[in-house]
């Protein structure tokens, strides 16, 4: 017996008890934590359900199929009062995505312009951009939204005394009214031509880039692309004898009829979000550009690059590495800040679904959970896209 155990000990000299194995221990602790969390979540859900039943508060997701019964003043999809809460959710979600998507695009453009302007050798331009950033980013966003809504758009005249611009555009306190394009028969060809032109331009740009890398010969991509994108649809228009008309708005009764209308709630929210976020993006851009060593610019100049090309080919690609991660933060902030829409009655997801629908149904837990999940998904998707882009613009190290 003694010999056997001594033999066993000798053949496995470093064997420790399984519960002392760090890997096993680590896994066990993590498993225990996971079980505890799941148990907590389960108990929470069970308890909430029991209490809701005890208090006779309706629970479950059945309400999504019930008729909502209230109106919404801006919807990207057809919506009427007889539609369901599920539809209200979609309407709110699309309104949130609309204002966030447009906001991100415009804030990026404005932010880049201001950020670059702040570094301009032109004294006045740089000071103006600096003043803009300091003024806008130091005022609360809610205040700015209310400013645009009440102090700017709210003071426009009523529709009967609307301010008319360029004949077809009307500024009123009911919104900005624009002539709307009306697609007639055959307009499908025009759209097809436009799509074709865009695809062709992308392919052309790719080819031109490859050729540049291979042979060093340049191709006027921008001019060729512009010619394609304008030329092809124009030819289609002529060929199909102008099927796209313009519908002009006209005053009838209380409001304008026809044309397109941007409701003031949307305009105020979009303008406030864009100007506010652009101030932060401008700083991000400025930091990114300043992070590129001056030697890079000097080297480019020594090689004979012109100023624009230096910026476009040398400085910005390197700056992007620094810019993209904080830029992602700003995009996420803009999306989340769009929920301030509730202050001015813009029907975004938070106002319409987590606000009105919650109040009419009283199902706080379900609606808050859905709303949280949606904002979380939007944010995670934005991060994912930006991380992918970040990986692409990263400095490739050898």
């Amino acid at each position, binding site marked *: 017996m003694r010999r056997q155990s001594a033999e066993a000990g000798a053949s496995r000299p470093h064997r420790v008890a399984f519960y002392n194995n760090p890997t096993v221990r680590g896994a066990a602790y993590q498993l225990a934590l996971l079980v505890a969390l799941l148990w907590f979540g389960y108990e*929470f859900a069970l308890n909430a359900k029991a209490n809701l039943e005890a208090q006779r508060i309706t629970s479950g997701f059945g309400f999504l199929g019930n008729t909502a019964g*209230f109106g919404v003043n801006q919807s990207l999809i057809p919506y009427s009062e007889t539609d369901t809460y599920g539809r209200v959710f979609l309407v709110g979600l699309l309104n949130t995505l609309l204002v966030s998507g447009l906001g991100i695009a415009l804030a990026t453009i404005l932010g880049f312009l201001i950020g670059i302007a702040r570094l301009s050798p032109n004294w006045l331009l740089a000071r103006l951009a600096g003043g803009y950033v300091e003024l806008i980013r130091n005022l609360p966003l809610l205040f700015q939204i209310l400013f645009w809504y*009440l102090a700017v758009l709210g003071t426009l005249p009523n529709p009967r005394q609307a301010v008319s611009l360029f004949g077809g555009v009307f500024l009123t306190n009911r919104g900005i009214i624009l002539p709307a394009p009306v697609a007639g028969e055959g307009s499908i060809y025009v759209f097809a031509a436009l799509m074709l032109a865009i695809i062709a331009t992308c392919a052309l740009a790719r080819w031109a880039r490859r050729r540049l890398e291979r042979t060093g010969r340049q191709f006027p991509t921008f001019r060729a692309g512009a010619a394609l994108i304008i030329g092809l649809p124009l030819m289609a228009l002529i060929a199909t004898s102008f099927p796209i008309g313009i519908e002009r708005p006209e005053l*009838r009764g209380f409001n304008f009829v026809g044309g397109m209308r941007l409701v003031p709630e949307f305009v105020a929210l979009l303008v406030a979000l864009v100007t506010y976020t652009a101030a932060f993006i401008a700083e991000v851009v400025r930091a990114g550009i300043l992070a590129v060593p001056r030697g890079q610019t000097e080297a480019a100049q020594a090689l004979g690059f012109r100023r624009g090309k230096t910026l476009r080919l040398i400085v910005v690609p390197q700056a992007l590495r620094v810019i993209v991660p904080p830029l992602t933060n700003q995009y996420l902030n803009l999306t989340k800040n769009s929920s301030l829409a509730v202050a001015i009655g813009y029907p975004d997801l938070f106002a319409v679904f987590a606000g009105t629908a919650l*109040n009419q149904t009283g199902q706080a837990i379900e609606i808050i959970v859905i709303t949280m999940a949606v904002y979380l998904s939007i944010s995670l998707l934005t991060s994912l896209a930006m991380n992918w882009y970040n990986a692409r613009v990263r400095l490739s190290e050898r």
Partner: protein
Amino acid sequence: MKRAISMLGVALALGAWADAASAQTFKTVTDRGSLICGVSQGLPGFSLPDDKGNWTGLDVDFCRAIAAAIFNDPGKVKFSPLSAKDRFEALRSREIDVLARNTTWTSSRDTSLGLNFAAVNYYDGQGFMVRKALKVNSALELNGASVCTQTGTTTELNLADYFRANNMKYEVIAFATADETVKAYEGGRCDAFTTDVSQLYSEKLKLANSNDHVILPEVISKEPLGPAVRHGDDQWFDVVKWVHYAMLNAEELGVSQKTIDEALKSSLPEIKRLVGTEGNYGEQLGLTKDWVVRIVKHVGNYGESFDRNVGTGSKLGISRGLNRLWTKGGIQYAPPIR
């Protein structure tokens, strides 16, 4: 933000403490030594703080009457101003003991929100206010109009129903608070402002040029407004309900702030039961024998409260209408105290 916190509160309250559902609000209130009453964020006639911070109004009087009945002191009330959107969450999450915030009693609110309506202290209906300059004489001429309203109200639903039923188009702009709504209407964002008629009268007072606005004759809905308590707390429900009935009974029997001392000497059995010189009806509720005396002395009967706050004795000058006692052609009717 406050709403978000209160919602989180609801979630936690519902999730974490299992037996809290049937908690004794009455005991909580007496232990605390004061009543917390959810009211509007400022609606003349119903609940509005004056320049010294004292709350007045029909709903405020109702809360004071409860405090008077319990503590013999109408000042032992803390008022918690709530938006239409936050009010039910506040009640459910126990931030307040009773919700007296011109709230419409509907079947779905009664059955699925975890609350009970104790009584109707104002029979109201929904109407429209427009600018006189629009030259609109009827709500049926509002086709195509932009209408401002407050979100999370029955108003929002009635509005949709009314325009749909009459085949009219409209644009609704829904704001979170009454002030934002009125501001938008005043700023010309909307052609019409819609809410309960009583509220239209009081908001009209707040407008800069109140004579430029007119309230249209149509009343498009039934809006019985009343105080609500949490579901499943019967004792507290009874107290709140009977405070309202006590005020109605007092008016019906001619017992007012002026006549209360005579009433105490009265030999009429009905009055004796009311003021507690006969029977122990107050004690059955968990209050004292003289509970009605306390209410009437400190606050007055229903008619006095009505006149002082919304009726002919107030700036609003709304006629009693449906809110007259049943003996005078109205529908305010209280079961007897016996």
